[in-house]
Structures are given as C-alpha cells and as structure tokens.
C-alpha cells in the first residue's frame, strides 16, 4: 500500500499568502466600498441577502465620514463613550501584557486591533442580553462597566479573584453583568448561547443572547450544533464569528475561509449571514443592532462575520514572527479601529488634545486599578486565597470524600 506516494499529492493544502520574509499580501480579502450595500428589513429571508455575506458592510469611508444606509444614529456623546471603551480596553491590555513580562501574572491574551468588535457589540445590545464571550472579547466586560480591579484580581489569582484561583488569567465571568464564563475549550459557548436564547423565548422574556468565537473555532462541531438549533427553533441569538485571519499559526483558509466567507455558512442553515468590517466601529454597531432587532422581534438568529486582524500575538505563549511576516499588521487594509473612529470624531470637532486627555485618563484608571488590585495580593505574595476553597464548588455541597481529601492536605503541613 501507499507505494506511489510522494511528498506531494492532489489534495489542496491551503497556504497563507505570505510567511516570514515574504511581502504581506491581502489580495484575497474582498472589500466592498463603504456605504455600497443595502440595509434590508430585519425580517428578510436568508436566501435574499446572499450578497451581504460575500460583500462587506462598511460605514466609515477613507476620510472618516459615515456613509450609506448602515450608518447608525449615534450622538457625539455615544461616540466618545465608544472611544473611551476602546482606549480603555487597549490600555488594559497593554498594562496586563507588561505585568506578564514582569511575572506578576502567568498568562495573558490581548485583543489589539479588534477592540471595536466587543465594544460596539456591547453598546448595541441591551444590558439584559446574555453575552457568551470568547477569550478575546474583554471589551464586553469593559463596556458593560466591569470594575477593572475585578478583572485584574482574576488575572492575579489573588484573594479577590472571582474564580477563586481555579482558572487561568482572562477566564472571566460576570453573573450580575450577564456575561457568561469563558471556557478554555473552543466553541462550546456557541450552542450554549443558542440554548440560553431558547430559554428566554420559552420563558417569554425579551432578552436575547449573543456569542463570539474566532474563525478558527468555527471548524468545531459545536458551530454546526449552534447553527442547526438556532435555525430549527429560530432562537433569538446573534452568533458572531470574529475573523481575525489567524488561529495561532493557522491561516483562516485552514478553517475553510478560502472559497466562501464564514458569513456565507449561515444560509446553508437557513440563517442570514452578514459580513462586516470589524475595524469599523459604526459598521459593527449597526450590524449588531440589526441582528439584535431580528432576534428580539422573533425573526430568528443571525450569523455575523466580523472581519478584523489579530494585530498582537495569539497569547503570551506565542511568537507570531515565526509564522507570519512581521510587517503584516502594517499592511492590513482595514486599518485600526481606534484610529478610524478618531478620524470620524475629528469631523465633529474632537481634537488631538481631547484624544490625548482621554488617553491619559484611561491610563490613569488602569494604573490606579492595578494598585488597588495588588492590595488583594498576587499569586505569590500578599493576601492569598484560602487553599481549602480548592475543594469547594465541585458540587453544590462539598461531599464527605472531598472533606477527607481536604483534611489530608491540611495534615500534610502540620
């Protein structure tokens, strides 16, 4: 068997357009001019908007003007809030990365370049809507007003850690803020969000659910489960695929993005799919608003692909210069979400000085929060979590067998 094999075959093996040492190339990316696509009514049928899953919904033009039917009605004050949340998200990431380098935390993941995804979504959805985040949507917490100290204490596994030291850094949750727990296992949140939405519909609540996964994660079977159940029951849910082009070292083509967009998978399930410029705050906002309106008015689920670029490393364990050109980010054609919103705000009189003041404000907020967080200890010093708590919450009531194990641990140190 296998005698005629060589190192080449007639299989197609997807390859990214550029590897380290080669010139970045985003020719594969289909980009629609801003304002060019129509905004259909929210009760539209999946098959009638196939063009919206191949094109790209964009609002901000090259000069930063909001153009076309998707331009959302937002006041200047809203846009300033958006800017603040994006800046705060980035400042938080920058600080936490530095704290990882100083060995204060064991791990970190940034969302650099993808801030609009979470911030615009959280602003477009209602506070009662349940969010099922990925590990790269920290902006959901920040936009919903989570105290940064809480997020930091989780990363520090200190005495105020919401996870009681049981999870790696960044695996936040927020029951009161309606943000679900982040799992290390990819895509599990997708069908869970559908189920939550089914629950809301069964109970007669108006709340909807929304979930985020990376494009790499869309390969998991849970993606299929989510789309099937969402479609079958017309669940009130917004399912977001954040296509940041890379899944660790793996180019989006390996997840199946070479021939059709990720949004285009929706219609196969009877679910409308729309493809959106993920670095265009206004477009993301408008798309989430549209999809949320569909869900809330019983028109069912929407699959939203947010096209963006993972500008930083996958995580603190990763070195992207090993697998993609170092200057690839600089060649990314959809720019930076913060810079693009800033350009837009500029037309409304937002000055460089305003921007600088806001920047130093958020940096001060991050620094002050960090100092406050440290007062609750770190993984290795200061107030510590009680290790007895390791045995709790496995079940609602701690079983006798675990009490025994806990005592065994304590006796060991006597």
């Amino acid at each position, binding site marked *: *068997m*296998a*005698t005629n*094999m*060589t*190192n*080449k*075959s007639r*299989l197609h*093996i997807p*390859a990214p357009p550029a*590897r380290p040492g080669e010139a970045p190339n985003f020719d594969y990316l289909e980009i629609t001019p801003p304002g060019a696509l129509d905004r259909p009514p929210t009760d539209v049928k999946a098959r009638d908007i196939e063009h919206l899953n191949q094109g790209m919904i964009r609002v901000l033009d090259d000069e930063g003007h909001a153009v076309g039917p998707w331009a959302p009605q937002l006041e200047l004050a809203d846009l300033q809030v958006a800017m603040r949340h994006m800046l705060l998200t980035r400042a938080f990431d920058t600080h936490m990365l530095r704290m990882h380098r100083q060995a204060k935390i*064991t*791990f970190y993941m940034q969302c650099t370049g993808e801030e609009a995804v979470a911030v615009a979504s959280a602003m477009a959805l209602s506070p009662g809507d349940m969010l099922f985040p990925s590990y790269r949507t920290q902006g959901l917490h920040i936009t919903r007003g989570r105290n940064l100290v809480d997020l930091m204490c989780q990363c520090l*596994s200190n005495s105020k*850690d919401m*996870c*009681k*030291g*049981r*999870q*790696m*850094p960044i*695996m936040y949750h927020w029951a009161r803020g309606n943000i679900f727990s982040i*799992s*290390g*296992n*990819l*895509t599990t949140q997708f069908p869970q969000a559908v189920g939550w939405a089914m629950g809301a519909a069964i109970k007669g609540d108006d709340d909807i659910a929304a979930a985020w996964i990376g494009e*790499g*994660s869309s*390969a*998991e*079977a*849970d993606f299929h489960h989510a789309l099937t159940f969402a479609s079958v029951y017309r669940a009130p849910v917004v399912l977001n695929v954040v296509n940041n082009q890379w*899944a*660790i*070292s*793996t180019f989006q083509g*390996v*997840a*199946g993005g070479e021939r059709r967009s990720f949004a285009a998978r929706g219609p196969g399930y009877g679910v409308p799919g729309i493809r959106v410029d993920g670095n265009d705050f206004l477009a993301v906002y408008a798309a989430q608003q549209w999809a949320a309106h569909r869900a809330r008015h019983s028109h069912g689920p929407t699959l939203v692909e947010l096209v963006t670029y993972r500008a930083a490393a996958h995580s603190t*364990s990763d070195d992207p210069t*090993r*697998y993609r050109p170092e200057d690839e980010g600089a060649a990314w054609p959809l720019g930076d979400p913060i810079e693009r919103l800033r350009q837009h705000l500029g037309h409304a009189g937002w000055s460089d000085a305003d921007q600088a003041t806001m920047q130093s404000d958020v940096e001060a907020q991050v620094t002050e929060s960090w100092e406050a967080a440290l007062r609750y200890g770190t*993984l290795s010093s200061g107030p510590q*979590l009680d*290790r007895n708590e*390791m*045995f709790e919450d*496995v079940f609602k009531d701690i079983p006798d*067998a*675990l009490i025994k*194990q806990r005592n065994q*641990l304590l006796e*060991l140190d006597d």
Partner: protein
Amino acid sequence: MARLNMVQALNSAMDVMLERDQSVIVFGQDIGYFGGVFRCTDGLQRKYGAHRVVDAPIAEGGIVGTSIGMAVNGLRPVAEIQFADYIYPGFDQIVSELAKLRYRTAGDFFAPVTIRTPCGGGIRGGQTHSQSPEGLFTHVNGIKVIMPSNPYDAKGLLINAIEDDDPVIFFEPKRIYNGPFSGYPDAPAQAWNTHPKSEVPEGYYTLPFGRAEIVRPGADVTLLCYGTMVHVAESAATLAEVDAEIIDLRSLVPLDTDTIIESVKKTGRCVITHEATKFGGFGAELAAIVQEQCFYHLEAPVLRVAGWDTPYPHAFEWDYFPGPKRVAAALQEVLEGP
C-alpha cells in the same frame, strides 16, 4: 547517539517514520509550518512537505474521524491533539469508532492511528491545560494507551505506536518535555542532557508495549508510576528514606502485570501514584490487580496518591499536584502504619 530532550526525541521518532514509511503522515493543529505549539513537529513540514505534515482545522472530532478514514485507506496518521484537555470533541470518534472498528468488522477493517497529546500539569495551565485523562481511555477496550517518562522511551515507544496496527493514544507529559521534574516547583529547572535516558539513538529503534521498567530496584515497597510521576517518585523515595522499588509502567494498555506482581510479591507493599484524579482513576485498576494477585503477600493496604478529586486549579497547582511530600507520606504509611 545524541543527547535529546523529549521534544527532540518525539520529533526524531516522527522524522524516522516519515522517512521510512511513505504511508506515515503527521496531522494536527499548528503542527505544520509552525512546528507545533510545543515544537514537537518542528522542521518536519520543511522536510516532508505540506502534504505529509498537514495543518488541520480546529476540530478534534474531525481530526480523529479523518485519521480513521485515512488509516482505513492504508495510511498511518500520527495525529496531534494540541492538549489532552481538548481531546473530548474527538471522544466519540475515539471510543465508538477507532477503538471498536476491528472488533465490529471481525478484523476486516482496522485503523492504525496514533494520537499524540500533551497531558499533565505543573505548567500553570489551569484546568484546561493540565488534565491527565488517561483513565478515560484505559477503560475503553481496543485502544492502546502509552505514557513515556523520558526521551529514550518516548522515541522508541512512539515508533512502536506508529508501526502498531492497533490505535494508540500516546500521552506526552508536557512538564517533562524539556527536562525531568523532581516535583519541587521552586527548585531550578533541570535539563535532560545530564539524564542517562537523554541518550537517544539517531535512527530507528522500537521499544515494545507492555513492558514496564524498574527504574530503581528496592526491597521495602513497590511504587507504581508513569509519566512525570516517575521523577517525582524518585524524589519521594529519597525524601522518605525508603528503599522503594520504583516501576515506570510506560504502557498502561497493554499493562505489564508480571513485573508489577513480581515486585509486590517481593516487597509486600505497594503505593500507586498518578497526576490524574483519584476516584475511578487508573490507580484503582492497579490497586485491584495487586489485591487480586498479591493479596497473601501484602503487609499493608495498597495506597494511592493522586490528584484530588477536583478540576485542576490554577492558583493551587502545587497543593493539587501529588508532590514528593505526599508520595513520601504514603511510603512511610505503608511501612510504619498510619
């Protein structure tokens, strides 16, 4: 002979087999151009091309399912699951398909798939980068389950796995990829290059399954272990000042019961240790075998030292990990009583 760490030894095993057997392909997430998140497949795609060292989508069920199909069609896929904690989306394909194909077709179909996957804790990975799920697979009939503890064994056993006509799950304790681990997290990291088992032949060799190794002969108590715990066991024996006979099982299925039984009959005592949680773990099977086969030679109850019966916590990693102190306490208990 070369001095290799575990990562290099595993890489060498795949290199040797890709070279030797055209039907071998390596398959998994980030394993191609990048060479794997732990670098085990570094350089293999450059050498054998993207059609034999193939990056896979993030779908463990898909990786196992397609590996089965390729294997049925005559290939020998070596699939990597990036972390053992992420093997569960592939669980149905492993348990219902991979493990049972030969049986249900009376041998007409079989799938020689090797699944490599890093396991175990000690790297601050929290509950989704630290698990040791070997017991979930040893309970399934029809798959072989291997866990090496050093570079020499890793290479020989992996080559054996790839050549085996039965499916194999090959657990790689990630804590010892780059050096043996004494079980003392604050001690300076050790490298493999001073360890005798880092001497690894460059070419082809195999180590058979189902053969445990006595890594330290002893008279007073038999200490059964595998993976990272082999090194921790040695620290524990030193700490307890006990003349323990340490047995590295290496191969859980098939299991070398002869070596275990012979040793326990000699020592009359047995302690079992693994990183995985205790309840229903592989240690329970070992304890049952010892009880069934050596009952009249036993001088003390058989004890197990394992991870606590909780998920693997991030902050309390070293309270959770069955370190030398806990293993030493068990060694003393079987010798001196509680």
